[in-house]
């Protein structure tokens, strides 16, 4: 595998995904979970831009990425708002405290 630009981007995408997934599996802080989600979506955005580039449709790829940014930001805002409310009502951001709904 030669280190051409697309291949490097692919590696970055895979790396970001790995980081995001690893974080989701291990971190217990709600804010960090939202950050991990963001990292995963960033990987996807990068992949979209790269796909547009590979197909010679850079405009389309980038506009897709822009749309994703909008949607993704709303999700992040809602997630953070929930985190704020969790901190207020439950008193902690630790995921292990959010295990009352089980079995």
């Amino acid at each position, binding site marked *: 595998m030669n280190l051409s630009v697309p291949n490097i981007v692919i590696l970055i995408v895979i790396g970001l995904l790995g980081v995001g997934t690893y974080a*989701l*599996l291990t*971190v217990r802080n709600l804010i960090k979970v939202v950050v991990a989600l963001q990292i995963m979506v960033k990987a996807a955005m990068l992949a979209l831009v790269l796909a547009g580039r590979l197909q010679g449709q850079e405009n389309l790829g980038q506009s897709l990425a822009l749309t994703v940014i909008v949607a993704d930001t709303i999700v992040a805002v809602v997630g953070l708002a929930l985190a704020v409310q969790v901190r207020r009502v439950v008193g902690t951001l630790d995921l292990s405290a959010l*295990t009352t*709904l089980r*079995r």
Partner: protein
Amino acid sequence: MAMTWLTLTIGLPWLGALVIWLAGDRDEKFTHLLAVAFSVAAGVAALLLLPYGKERLVYSLPMGGVFGDFTFVVDGLGVFLAAIATVVGSLAVIFSVDYMHGEGQLPRYYAFVLFFIGGMAGLVLTSNLLLMFFFWEITALCSYALISFHNDDPKAVAGGIKALIITQLGGIGLLAGALLLYAYTGSNDFHVLLENPAILPAGVLAWMGFGCLIAAAAKSAQFPFQTWLPDAMEAPTPISALIHAATMVNAGVYLLARFYPAFAGVPGWREAVMIVGMLSALLAAVMAMVATDLKRVLAYSTISQLGFMVYAVGAGGVFASQFHLLSHSVFKALLFLAAGAVIHSVGTRDMRRMGGLGKDMPVTRAVFVIGGLALAGIPIFNGFWSKELILEAGLHENPLWLYALMVFVAGLTAFYTVRMISMVFYGEAHPERHVHDAGNAMKVALLPLAIGSLTTWLLAGPFGHLLAESLPAHHLEVHSTLAVVEEVITAPATYLALGVVALGWLAGWQRRRLSRVGQALSGVGKAAAESFGFEAINRGVVNATQKLAEALRVTQPGLLNWNVFAIVCAFLILLASLAVGGR
């Protein structure tokens, strides 16, 4: 005109159910009145439908697609069973006027009884297998709802759910049969199959045949599904008489009889049916000999008698089975309702706490004894003729050992009948007890059934012709009543069976003197009281399922990281299988 009576037979009870439910809990008398009115009207409609049975009229309501045409066929088998359902149904409702007096939530009770009556009539009158399954499940629903009518009693709830689940489990056999029929013929109409079984490949036909056998065994409480019926005795007694003696439990026998022309040629099917019938008859009779709960004895005897009918179908005696079904419906409904009068009066179902009731309840004793004689197969009573016909059918090119066992069971029947009658009505009375005879509404319901137990055998000829003419695929051979009587009287086998019955009767009467034999057989008795281990199997399955369910709850630990882990794992497994399986 037939169309009108058909619609009324199914529609009137259902309309009644709706009206009673809507009328609500206001006035008890009004509720009773509505129920009696609707059920009697349905009974009249069904009786008016009877004469059309020979013409084999077909009514169809196009539904389209996989639902087929919703078809109703007015033929002999259908109208006869519909008449039993509605007539015994209306008698049970009349009986309930006294029996259920003062109970709460009466509209729910009557609504389900009427819903059941309509459903049962629909079950036997349709020729669309989907629709048959539809009604089949409706009767199961009503049976469940009525068994657990006293929802505050955990035993009643458990009995109801057990009945529902076991019959549903068996019902999958019928479902599979219906699905196979549609998948291979593109239609739900089973008459095509009855006329020409070869339209299905032999293997498929065999699956369908054994599926129907499973469904029939579950519905008719036959081996190995017999355990639900005794527990169903928690139902109010009129329900036991109607659903668990006279009508719904016959649906299995009906199914086998209906499909006999299609499956008779399936290798091993007839033998399997006979063995299922024999085992049920034998095991249940032994259980009835040791049970002390009056209703449970009757329940075991129902299983045993249904075993006779199933055996008869397997032996090729379709007419004999249906004739015994008629007799049994009448005398067993009578026995149950009379037992209901006793229970209502004494307040217990334990026969050991009864005894000597005959003096205070002369009418009840008289009708109960009539029913008992019919059950035991004593001559002149209707049970005698039909049981002899069954045993005779067993002699026609069928295994002799099965026949011998069935004759033995006839003896056991006489034994437990005598035991039951003497324990309840004779012997020492309990002085502190104040009992009263059956109420007026109860008597109104009991008398026709008692008369029926003495006379329905006179209908053998007309009934046979009704069946033969409208069921061409069955190739039934029938005779006039006189010829049937002559046939039974002249056959040597009759006297053999009668001798065994007499022995059983004698043994039952003198059972105290046989106590030593009883001790020798106490192991059998104990096994019988435990339902020969089938209860243990039921419990085992339920416990295993519950334990598995409880164990699985660890899969939901509630931790978000774990949830994401499950997603990641699923993704990796998909990727791996795609890598291996390729495209």
